[in-house]
């Protein structure tokens, strides 16, 4: 008894956490002031992956920049592709076909599953539960295979074009997706069985990093972070884009706003995404995936370029400087619901073929900015749990 009554006297210590620490997922650095094991003050330092995306965007035309958006959020690159294509289409006032929208929804939701499952796995690894990570990664590999079938690569997909998609889905895609969805269901159930009632897991995640509703709004949080704090806000429902209004799914909300709730929201969102995927496959309309190439906006299909002289000439014309895609002078902002939250692109155009200014509204930056508030008063060992539950993606954070 006596020992607990009189705590050990300790001096304040400054600890440098990162930038290359395994639980910082790459490139975060936090300077923490510790009193014993309790964090008194934390100052995050970011910018270790600042790569000048926005400067680069001013030199690339609209279709070229889509390849760059992949590299921004590398857990769910397809969502970025879709978001950027949407903003360029809004700026140029292009309507894409119904099939394009449905495919975009299908693939965005698949990436949402892949993103959430990896995030849960990483969170579990950081807290010492390796199995969930390996289970989750097996599923992610299956989803990578789906991406590879559709887009040709595993990670850096660059699948959308302004005004459509790079190509249509291959034959038999629906069957493969359904197979993976069955697998997803199993793996999510497995992970939940391993974690939900696990005593250690609960001890390490419940009541840790609690975010109140007011804080969530003041700090600009969005996505699962905001929904775990009881904010009923999902852009797919509130401001539907890309035909999300056609789908029937629930917005997942939790009330406590701690790490455990964020984990629960993510697992449940995986189930909702599966629902959307199934509906998208069922209702998939037929038709083209690219708008009429004669408009001068988008590249012609690859077949035409390789097999006909008109296609080749047209391809040249579209990609030549001062020809092809010329948007009107103006600006557009499109918010989308990426796995992390509100991913917005803001384009300003001066009427030339490259944008005047490309701005990304990175959900990670806003979500991470609350970190120093969350960790204060917690133990040092809670830092990985909180970082993991925020799902900071350095590429998007620093751009």
């Amino acid at each position, binding site marked *: 008894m006596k020992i607990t009554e009189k705590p050990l006297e300790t001096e304040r210590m400054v600890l440098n956490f990162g*930038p*290359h*620490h*395994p639980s910082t997922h*790459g*490139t975060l650095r936090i300077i923490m002031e510790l009193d014993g094991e309790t964090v008194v003050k934390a100052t995050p330092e970011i*910018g*270790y*992956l*600042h*790569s*000048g995306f926005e*400067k*680069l965007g001013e030199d690339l035309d609209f279709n070229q920049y889509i*390849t*760059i958006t*992949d*590299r921004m959020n*590398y*857990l769910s690159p397809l969502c970025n592709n879709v978001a950027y294509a949407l903003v360029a289409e809004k700026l140029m006032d292009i309507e894409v076909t119904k099939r394009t929208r449905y495919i975009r929804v299908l693939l965005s939701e698949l990436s949402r599953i892949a993103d959430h499952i*990896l995030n849960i796995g990483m969170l579990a690894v950081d807290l010492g539960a390796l199995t969930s*990570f*390996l289970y989750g*990664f*097996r599923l*992610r*590999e299956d989803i*990578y295979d789906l991406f590879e079938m559709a887009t040709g690569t*595993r*990670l*850096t997909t660059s699948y959308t074009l302004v005004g459509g998609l790079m190509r249509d889905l291959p034959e038999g895609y629906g069957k493969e997706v359904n197979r993976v969805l069955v697998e997803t269901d199993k793996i999510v159930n497995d992970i939940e069985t391993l974690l939900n009632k696990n005593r250690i897991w609960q001890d390490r995640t419940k009541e840790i990093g609690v975010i109140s509703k007011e804080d969530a709004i003041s700090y600009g949080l969005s996505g699962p972070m905001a929904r775990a704090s009881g904010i009923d806000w999902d852009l797919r429902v509130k401001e539907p884009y890309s035909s999300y209004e056609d789908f029937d799914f629930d917005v997942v909300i939790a009330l406590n706003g701690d790490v455990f709730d964020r984990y629960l929201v993510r697992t449940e969102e995986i189930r909702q995404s599966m629902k959307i995927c199934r509906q998208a496959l069922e209702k998939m309309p037929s038709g083209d995936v690219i708008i009429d190439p004669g408009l001068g906006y988008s590249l012609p299909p690859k077949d035409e370029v390789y097999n006909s002289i008109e296609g080749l000439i047209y391809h040249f014309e579209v990609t030549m400087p001062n020809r092809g895609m010329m948007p009107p002078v103006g600006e557009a902002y499109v918010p989308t619901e990426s796995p992390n939250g509100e991913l917005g692109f803001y384009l300003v155009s001066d009427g030339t073929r490259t944008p005047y200014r490309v701005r990304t509204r990175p959900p990670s930056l806003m979500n991470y900015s609350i970190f120093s508030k969350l960790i204060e008063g917690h133990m040092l060992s809670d830092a990985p749990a909180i970082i993991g539950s925020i799902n900071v993606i*350095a*590429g998007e954070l*620093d751009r």
Partner: protein
Amino acid sequence: MDQDYIKSNVLTTTLESAINWGRKHSLWPMPFGTACCGIEFMAVLASRTDLARFGAEAIRFSPRQSDLLIVAGRISIKMMPVLIRIYEQMPEPKWVISMGACASSGGVFDTYSVIQGIDRFIPVDVYVPGCPPRPEGVVDGLMKLQKKVGKEKLSDYTTSNTS
């Protein structure tokens, strides 16, 4: 002694090849994953590709305990001093794999803040091309490095060359 006994129990080799054999099959990598390539490197370690089959699964996040630095991802001007520091902290012998276009040459990021190839500043042994390289590519790079380690000469390691 009986001839058979000797045959089955005595092995003659050179010290060099014995050491190299040991080194190349127990590389301890330190992943310096910063961006997308870091995620693919995770895939290399995870279930399907499983780097453990090549004796390089003992991932260490401390430079003092590792002999293979795998730089996966773009290195910004703010990160470069950290990378140099980590490289210098690793004990000899040490090798470096530069994974992906960004680490090798800056990749698509020809901008003010991305180092145009880490080999401008630190020595690199194996380059793995791709953006990102497939996990198979990384495994191939590792095997190339193993071959290289196998051919090294102990006499080349002379401390007198330190400068």
